[in-house]
């Protein structure tokens, strides 16, 4: 299924404060876009607005050609999979890893071929009967990613997946994402505030500052800028 994401003239206001201002972007099907920017620049707000968590004050969002409104938000959400920044729970929280996988299923995981396949691919068989709260940060992230991918989205939104991982765990996570990208040709939006965390497969970069897009283009262009670090983080 070919699907574009279009954001036109988007403004988001939260408690009378403008969080995003005049955002325009278009992602073609199969784009791997990295959204860069310092803390508080509005990166997460873009993804949450795509998910319909925030209502635009002005502007429109089109997913696969369909304008997303309150009425058809479930339709739009069905095409997206969102990996939030934070899904930490108390380590004694009563939920097993297999319960998480089954969020995306109508039946038990072992009765579903797709689930068995993805469990195998992600190598999380030995985690299924373990309490989710006791998994490592990387294992938790893999589990949530496997669960949201079971919904067969066309667009994957990754909200700072590096936050709860050390560098090695993040690199492993990125390998999985790159494998999925190559296999399924999804459109991916990945948020990070670290340049070293950009995937090699991500050709397009967007830089946000104080709620505005200050750069949108090829990754090479930004690295060719003389003071690119200062440009992004000043």
């Amino acid at each position, binding site marked *: 299924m070919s699907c574009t994401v279009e954001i036109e003239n988007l403004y988001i206001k939260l*408690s009378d404060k403008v969080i995003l201002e005049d955002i325009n972007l278009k992602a073609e099907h199969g784009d791997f876009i990295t959204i860069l920017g310092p803390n508080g620049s509005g990166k997460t707000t873009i993804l949450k607005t795509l*998910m*319909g*968590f925030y209502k635009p004050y002005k502007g429109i969002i089109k997913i696969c050609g369909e304008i997303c409104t309150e009425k058809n938000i*479930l339709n739009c*959400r*069905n095409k*997206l*999979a*969102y990996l*939030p920044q934070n*899904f930490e*729970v108390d*380590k*004694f*929280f*009563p*939920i*097993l890893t297999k*319960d*998480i996988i*089954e*969020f*995306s299923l109508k039946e038990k995981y072992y009765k579903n071929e797709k689930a068995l396949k993805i469990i195998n691919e992600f190598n999380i068989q030995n985690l299924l009967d373990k*309490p*989710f709260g*006791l998994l490592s940060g990387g294992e938790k992230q893999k589990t*949530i990613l496997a669960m*949201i991918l079971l*919904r067969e989205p066309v667009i994957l939104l990754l909200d700072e997946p590096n936050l709860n991982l050390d560098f090695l765990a993040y690199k492993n996570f990125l390998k999985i994402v790159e494998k999925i990208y190559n296999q399924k040709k999804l459109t991916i939006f990945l948020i990070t505030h670290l340049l070293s965390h950009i995937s090699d497969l991500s050709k397009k970069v967007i830089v946000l500052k104080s709620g505005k897009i200050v750069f949108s283009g090829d990754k090479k262009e930004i690295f060719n800028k003389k003071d690119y670090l200062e440009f992004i983080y000043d």
Partner: protein
Amino acid sequence: MIDVFLFKTLSAGILVGLECGMIGVFIFLLNIPFVGVAMAHAAMAGGIWGIIFNIPTKLSAFCLSLISSFLIGPMTDKLKINPNITISIIFSAVMGFAFLGIGILKGNNEMVLNFLWGNILLIDFFDIILLLGTLILEIAIIVIFYKSYLAIMFNREIAISLGINDKILYYLIFFLIGIIISINLDIIGGLMLFSLIITPPAIAYHITFELKKFFILSGIFGAIGTAGGIILSFLLNLPVSASVVLFMTLLFIITTVFSPKRKKYGQS
């Protein structure tokens, strides 16, 4: 005669323990322990104003408790604040109403005390039917929406992204809490109610990692605690509410000390 009386009280106690224990799972995992206190006081205020306006107190208590339960969810969402803050605001407001009513009533405090302590010994057949009805409603809601509630309690953002209508289910839980608290309030009173919705899930939390078992164990511990407390009070001629609360606390201490979860996975 005593056997029939004890049987009736025990049956009611077991039903109360089961339904409070199970609803307590939501209260425990959503981290809103004071919802019980706020709604109990809303019911108390409703009861007091029922006397003033000559309306059946059960009905007025039920209505005000339900109104409060309807307000908590939408207020929390609209104001984007922690539900405990909304609960505290409602608690303060209904306390104000209750004390205003007490001032107007001037001295008729018997009913007020009844709302605090309840009287499970005076339970009648109609109360048992009501308890049974709410228990069936509660189990039905848990069974039908089990997976959705698990997702909401785990992470509301993930639940929304999965297409779960979190708002309706979130409000439904407050509504169910309101019904259970107002039905139970003049049977067991606010103080015992608070213990019955918090302690059983706190006990079950020490035992299982599975939500299904968590609901079942919390209900069972609620029933065991209530039944054990009632039997103790009959044997030792003690006040029922105090016996139940203390017996439940004893169960909590025992499970904390011998918790298989804590033993295996540590304290922190």
